[in-house]
């Protein structure tokens, strides 16, 4: 039986000036799975994520979310789909002028007609899920980086989304907090049976949380597979990335050829 597809991209191309960041990306993410997009810095993985959440428009290609093509949708239609997705940002992106409680409750207040008392209960439940119940009245500036990420996560899941996207969920966190966040991602995806899409280059995290993994390199998907398939990959790029070996097909110095010419110019 074919698995149902939650997110799909078809021939996605994005250029910034002359630089091609995405060069024909085709990805299929199934409902209920935890899908990790990994790749080096600047390989286009955050840009790819931004196309999936429709905050960026592709130059060419299509993005499907929950069966609907979103690249050409009007604002009202797009809003309907956005209410079914959640996003946890790299820098948590909490609204500075609002308390933790207000941040988490904002989508409910804006998109539902729930009574204040109900909203309060939902907020408490979501904060409990991320281990931060009782922090409702603090301002984001009073929280640590890991706590902010967890509040951002509570806000992302407050509308009970079908898909949650994570942009570098463990970057800049100590290993214990990173482990806590990873566990949270696994728990949420299993408990709430959410489709999870994670963009990261933290290899420890990748193998802890992923059902399937895609490796992005120079704007192209070089390999997609399960954890074991990726671990035992024969692809030189994937092997080098997993091992962190400085020598290999992934070039760190991009312009070797004209080095001498540039020196004496």
């Amino acid at each position, binding site marked *: 039986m074919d698995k149902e597809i939650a997110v799909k991209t078809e021939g996605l191309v994005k250029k910034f000036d002359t630089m091609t960041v995405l060069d024909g990306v085709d990805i299929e993410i199934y409902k209920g799975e935890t899908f990790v997009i990994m790749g080096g810095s600047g390989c286009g993985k955050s840009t790819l994520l931004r196309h999936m*959440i429709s905050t960026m428009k592709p130059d060419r290609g299509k993005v499907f979310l929950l069966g609907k093509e979103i690249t050409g949708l009007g*604002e009202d239609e*797009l*809003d309907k789909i*956005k209410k079914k997705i959640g996003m946890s940002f790299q820098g948590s*992106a909490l*609204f500075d002028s609002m308390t933790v409680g207000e941040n988490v409750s904002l*989508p409910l207040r804006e*998109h539902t007609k729930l009574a204040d008392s109900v909203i309060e209960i939902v907020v408490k439940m979501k904060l409990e899920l991320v281990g931060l119940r009782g922090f409702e009245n603090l301002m984001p500036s009073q929280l640590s980086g890991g706590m902010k990420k967890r509040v951002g996560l509570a806000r992302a899941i407050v509308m009970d989304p079908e898909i949650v996207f994570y942009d570098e969920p463990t970057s800049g966190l100590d290993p214990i907090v990173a482990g806590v966040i990873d566990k949270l991602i696994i728990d949420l995806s299993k408990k709430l049976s959410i489709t999870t899409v994670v963009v990261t280059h933290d290899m420890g995290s990748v193998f802890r949380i992923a059902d399937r993994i895609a490796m992005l390199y120079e704007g192209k998907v070089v390999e997609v597979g399960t954890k074991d398939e990726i671990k035992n990959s024969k692809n030189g790029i994937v092997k080098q990335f997993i091992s962190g070996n400085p020598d290999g097909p992934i070039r760190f110095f991009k312009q070797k050829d004209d080095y001498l010419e540039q020196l004496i110019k």
Partner: protein
Amino acid sequence: MIGAYAISTAQHAKKVLGLFFDTVYWIIVGPAKGKFAKRASIFEQMVFIGVRSVIIVFFVAFFTGIVIAMQSAYQLAQLGGTIYVAAMVSVTMARELGPVLTALVVAGRIGAAITAELGTMKVSEQIEALDVLALNPVRFLVVPRFLALLIMLPCLTVMSDLVGMVGGFLVGVYNLGLNPYRYIDVSFEFLVWRDIWTGVLKSVVFAITIAIIGCYMGLNTTGGAEGVGKYTTLSVVTSFILIVLFDCILTGVFYFSNM
């Protein structure tokens, strides 16, 4: 080089106009869709923009009134018409200096604050977060600031007209020795409704300018903390130039149409 600069300016102007129409769209169509800006956030902005600007507008207008009175007394004394200082102060404040100086003060204080706040939100992904939460940033952030400025700047302008006249009155009565009743009479004899509403109309145009430029610069900020500083400066400079430019155009229109 000049061509490229002209093209980029034209592109920005088009986007600024786009933001303006988008804002007007949300003000008009938003309530019909049940998606209007929150009343609480409009009032919050009105307090920040209006009430908190009262003191600085008061001082600027008060001292400007004093200065106009002294400068015009110096000239009018040679013609033997010192009493017309009253008319000079009231008409100048209402038609020109009230709206323009208030707008410049508010552009420096509020325009900068708007750009810095929205710019910081932009570089820390908060604007994108609003977008993903299906909350339109124009409706959520621009509309309350736009409406608050549209309501409060004309109020501040009328206040500044009155305060300027008080400043002039003090010079007229205590320095020039003019009869206070006569001073007030002459003030209002020469001040007609036209002078007041043209001034208020100017302040409405300035309010739109400050709000849209401040928000546009904020929403387009790039380059981290340095970018926020850069765009805030750019916002104030652009607002200043546009305020003076629109003042010139409007004064021209009023002058040539005998208003």
